[in-house]
Each structure stands twice: as structure tokens, then as C-alpha cells.
């Protein structure tokens, strides 16, 4: 999502600048974070379920929880995060120039971004992909039945290209109905200007809530593009890269082991060696990253495991009600998988 800055020149110049900046600004992020006492985290300026301020002004969302996890691991306090809202165009510069320590802003992991911008993707906290929403009255169960359909799209995003590719591959035709903003797209869909609305799946659920009758629309199972979203750090600081990466892994491992923010206190003295290693009761796996032995315990205690994080922000515990799908654990039919802590 938000991949509408396909301007090679801009990327090239940013990359050039990044290369010159990265050499200068590779001081240990961990030390500077400890010194400042908070993690500077780049988030979006508002994306349902991923990062948005709640009524009290606290940032909430799946991307926000990644930052809270890092703060819990490093500083022992998940609330020690300073959120820097960034637009899609600012985000990489902010990271390159050192304005933020982690970019957790629904950023798709692509080869260009990973290799030419002086950045590293530390993992995937949400496997997204482009999908379709249709009115239930249409009686369509699969995207393969959409030949000749009028499709509402938001202009200027790769969504448009993916859509054209998918229909060409499947030898189908469609009639694009293009809008400028997502709100207009929803209104167009609601007014019957098109039969189908396409966007990234995480967005479709948010858009569905905006309909007058959300129950009348359904999201089709097909996903036609790969949009792995994850936190990003500066290249050249492997220690910080490891911290962000393993914070996420610790949460995924915790879900697999059945550790939650509620039961972690009781499980701290568990005899299961995997659990003991993760919570720091057996060995010190934080040391090599410059973290205290209880780093993973703090993350799980304060932010929860991956499943809790997912359900709270985008899943059944939220208004979005997105199914786990690809984001289920590998043991439950999804592809969320974390290497073991040992």
C-alpha cells in the first residue's frame, strides 16, 4: 500500500543521498536510544488498524505495537516511544537522516527499497496483498468470475498495475473507474458506479466499515499481489537491526508457545526449556544484542504476543475484523514463522 512514489529519479537521488548520509550516521542506534530514553518511531499519519491516534491521543495499531515492542525490549518500558507521523514520501528520508530509529509505517518490502535506499527490512508484521470487495448481491464467489466488471480503483497506486496484470493473465477484461482518494472510491462503490472495489486487503476491511451497510459487502478470497509490510531500519547498524528483528520474532515465538501478556508472569518459571530461554530464565540471549536478559519477557508482558497484537488492532478485537489468513502462524496454516531462540 502507499506505493505510489514510483519516480525513479526521486528514488535514485534519495539513494545517492542515503549513501552519503549512511556513512556518517551509522553511530550505534542502541546507545543513542538508551541515552535519549525513548525510541523515535516513524508511523503513518493515520491508517486504520496500523497507526492512528485514539480518543485520548495515544497511538494505536499494529505498526505502533512494533515500536512499543522495541521500546519494551530496549528500555523495559513500552510507553517510551516518540511517534513521528510521516507521509509516504518523507518516510525513507526521515530514517536516513536519523530523525527516526525505526520506520514502522505499512511499508512494503521490495527489492528496490531493500537494496538501493540504504535501508534494511527487519521482518514482516503483516502479510498484505491486493484483494477485491464486491457487493453480496452480485453473487460472485471468486475473482475469476469478474470478467467484464467495472472496478473502482484509487489512481496513481500500483494497485492499478497489479489489477491490469491480473486480468490480462487470466484473459479477462475490466472497466476501470478511477478515483483520487479512498473516501471517493468508497462513495463510488456505494453509489453503484462499479461492481468491484480493489485495494490492499487490509484496506478493504477498513473501507467496508465506511459503507452504509457493511454487511452487504464481502471480500473475495483471492489475493493478487504480494505486499509484505514490516519495520525498517537504517543499513549499517547490525545490532539495532537484530534488536528490531528479534523483537518481532520473540512475539511470534511467544504465540507459538502459548505465552500471552496475561500468563507470562506465571510461565516465567516454566520448565519448558523453550519458554525458559525466551523469557530469560535459562541463559542470556539478550546479551549479544546489548539487551537485558528479560528483553523478550518485557515485550510479551507489555505488548503481548503476535496473535494478541494482531487481534487487538486489526483482528476480532477491533472494528476491522480481519481474518488471520496468511498472518496465522505456520502451524495454523499461515506463514508467520520465527526462528527459535536458543
Amino acid at each position, binding site marked *: 500500500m502507499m506505493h505510489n512514489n514510483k519516480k525513479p529519479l526521486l528514488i535514485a537521488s534519495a539513494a545517492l543521498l542515503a549513501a552519503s*548520509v549512511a556513512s*556518517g550516521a551509522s553511530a550505534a542506534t542502541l546507545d543513542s536510544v538508551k541515552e535519549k530514553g525513548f525510541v523515535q518511531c516513524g508511523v503513518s*499519519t*493515520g491508517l486504520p488498524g496500523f497507526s*492512528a491516534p485514539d480518543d485520548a491521543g495515544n497511538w494505536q495499531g499494529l505498526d505502533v505495537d512494533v515500536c512499543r515492542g522495541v521500546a519494551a525490549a530496549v528500555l523495559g518500558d513500552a510507553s517510551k516511544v516518540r511517534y513521528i507521523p510521516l507521509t509516504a514520501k518523507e518516510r525513507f528520508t*526521515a530514517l*536516513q537522516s536519523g530523525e527516526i530509529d525505526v520506520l514502522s509505517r505499512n511499508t512494503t518490502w521490495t527489492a528496490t527499497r531493500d537494496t538501493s535506499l540504504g535501508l534494511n527490512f527487519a521482518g514482516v508484521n503483516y502479510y498484505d496483498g491486493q484483494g477485491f470487495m464486491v457487493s453480496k448481491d452480485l453473487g460472485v464467489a471468486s475473482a475469476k468470475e469478474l470478467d467484464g466488471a467495472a472496478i473502482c480503483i484509487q489512481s496513481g497506486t500500483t494497485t492499478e498495475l497489479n489489477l491490469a496484470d491480473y486480468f490480462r493473465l487470466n484473459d479477462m477484461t475490466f472497466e476501470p473507474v478511477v478515483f483520487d482518494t479512498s473516501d471517493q472510491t468508497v462513495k463510488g462503490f456505494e453509489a453503484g458506479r462499479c461492481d468491484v472495489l480493489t485495494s490492499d486487503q487490509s484496506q478493504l476491511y477498513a473501507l467496508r466499515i*465506511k459503507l452504509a451497510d457493511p454487511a452487504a459487502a464481502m471480500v473475495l478470497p483471492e489475493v493478487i499481489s504480494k505486499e509484505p509490510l514490516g519495520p525498517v531500519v537504517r543499513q549499517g547498524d547490525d545490532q539495532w537491526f537484530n534488536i528490531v528483528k528479534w523483537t518481532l520474532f520473540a512475539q511470534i515465538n511467544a504465540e507459538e508457545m502459548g505465552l500471552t501478556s496475561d500468563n507470562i508472569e506465571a510461565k516465567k518459571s516454566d520448565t519448558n526449556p523453550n519458554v525458559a530461554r525466551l523469557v530469560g530464565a535459562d541463559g542470556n540471549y539478550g546479551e549479544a544484542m546489548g539487551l537485558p536478559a528479560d528483553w523478550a519477557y518485557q515485550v510479551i508482558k507489555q505488548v503481548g504476543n503476535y496473535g494478541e497484537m494482531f487481534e487487538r488492532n486489526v483482528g476480532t478485537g477491533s472494528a476491522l475484523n480481519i481474518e488471520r489468513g496468511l498472518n496465522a502462524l505456520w502451524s495454523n496454516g499461515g506463514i508467520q514463522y520465527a526462528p527459535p531462540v536458543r
Partner: protein
Amino acid sequence: MSIEKTPSRVTEKMIDARSAPSDSIGTIAWLRTNLFAGPINTLFTLFACYLIYLLIVPSLQWALIDANWSGTTRADCTGEGACWVFISARLDQFIYGFYPEELTWRVDIVFAIFAALVAWLAIPNMPVKGLVAIATLAVFPFIAFFLLHGGSFGLEVVGTHEWGGLMLTLVLAVVGIVAALPMGILLAMGRRSDMPIVKSICVVFIEFWRGVPLITVLFMASVMLPLFVPGEVNLDKLVRALIGITLFQSAYMAEVVRGGLQAIPNGQTEAGVALGLGYWRNMGLIVLPQALKLMIPGIVNTFIALFKDTSLVLIIGLFDLLAIVQAGLADPKWLGYSIEGYAFVALIFWVFCFSMSRYSQYLERLLHTGHKKR
């Protein structure tokens, strides 16, 4: 020949003026001449009334009659009408941004002082206006900064990343207006100067800043600038935006002021010179007072444009009033209330801009010295 008695057919006393026929005065006459002057006119009137009916009735129905006013969550919004609960639940956030709740009194004090100063200056015949004006321009910005930002006199620091909402909009607009007017006057005077270097610097400055869109300026300030300065120098994002807005607006202001200066006949300056006044006194006592009066509509126009332009900072991730409402709309709990949000923002902007406009018209009437076309 002596004057004879008035003939009996001539009345001796003046006849009182009769009131005009009832069909040529009053509401009915007004309606007849303005709305129902002929068949085509009548048709248009009826059609327009129908259009207004189509527009106004559902809007009122939605915004007032069917609307939900009380409550705290989405569940309190059941009716077909507007859900103002979204606004009331997040009103503090819309006004103060992410300013710590227990410290918002500091913002309130700044608002109050500012309102008092503006009122003092706006109401005619208040004493010591000159002193108050100087205080507003020279002292108030520092008080406001110390109160809002803190960091001295035992006040807790509230970084600019926590500023937002209406407060940020006002900070951007007031700083832009207060800084751009003097800069604009100086630039305009420089552009009309006989000194070649001063003149060319001013021309280049004005033409450069007028030639680039504000979005580009903000974008450069927020995205490119940090890449060019060393990592330790972390100039605040808000400060960068403020500098950008001020430089940009001062160029526009300069051209408005230059227009006013050109309208003052040369004879005025020459008369001043003949009296032995130097350049600055000539400008300050003779040219500017006349020119500024002529420029009121243009200056206020620029202010209003600036006030609305402040919402462009949302493209660099600063949460002004518009941006914070948009961010609120991304909260899954409040998805789908965008019309309420935007209507609220529009109302606030309209109130501010319309007040500025009315005040400028009042000033024009107050200062008009017979040059104005009636």
C-alpha cells in the same frame, strides 16, 4: 393690484404627503421588483427556491434534526443524521493535538492573552494602543513560546512534535502573519529602492519565492533539508515549516505592499522631501500610512490565504486542524465519519476567515477618508 383672496379651489394648507402606493414599497414591492419582475424572472425565482429547498432541508435534517449530539462512542450514533459525537469525543485532541492533557492550561492562557491583545487592538478608542501593539509583536511571541514549549521557569518541556490541532494551525498562521507583514514591507521598499544591490536582492528573493509552490517549499524543508545538514543539527520540523511559510508569504506580501506604495503619487514623497524629511521618516510618516490604508483588502486577502494554506503542512506530517481530524478518521472506532469531520473543520476555518474579512471591512470604513468610491 392688490393680492386677492385665494380662490376657493386652492387649498390654504399644504396637503400632507401621502404614503406611496402599497404595491411600490415594503416587502411586497421588493419581492415584485427583485424576484417576480416578469414571467422569466418568476420562473427562475421558483426554480431557485426549489433548488434551495432540495439542498437546505436534507442538510438541516442531517446536521441538526436527526443528528446525534451526546455520547462518547460510535455506538451512541444510531440515527440517520450526523454523528457529532465523533467531534465532541475528540474535541480536546482537535484543539490541542497531542499536548499533554494536564498541561493544556498553558495553551489556554496563550489563547486568552492573544484574544485579549487582539481585542484591545481591534476595539477603537482603547488607551495606549501603541504600547499594546509593541507588546503583541515583541513580547507576546516570547511569552507564548515559553508557555507552549516550556523549558524555563520550571515549566515542563512540551516538544513541538506534541503540538497539533487548532493550536498548531493558529501558531502557523499567527507566526506567518506577524513575520510576513514586516518582511513584506521591507522587501517592497527594497524593490522600489534606487540602490541596485538592495533592489536586485529583493527582486530575486520575491521572484524566487513567488515562483515556487508552497507545497514544494514545505517538501524541501521537511524532506531534503535534513539530508544536507549534519546529523547532530536537528532543526525542528515545525521551525523548518514556519521558516518556509514565512519566506513564502513575505514574497506575496511584498507584492501587495508594492502595489499600495505605487498608488501613492510622487508628489507626496516630494512634498515630504521638501519639508526636509529623510527616507525613513518620509516612508513612516507620509507614504506608508496612506499606502497601508489602501492595501487593507489586499493584505487581509493574503492573510486569509495564508490561514488556509497552513493546512498544507499535513503533507509533511504535521498535525494541524485538518490533519488531526483526518488522523482521527483513521481510528477504527470512528471509521466512516468523514463528512462530520470535514464539516467541522470547514466551519472552524470559515469562522476565522470570515471574522478576518469582516474586520478588514470595518477597518476600511473606519479609516476611509473620502477616497473610497461609494
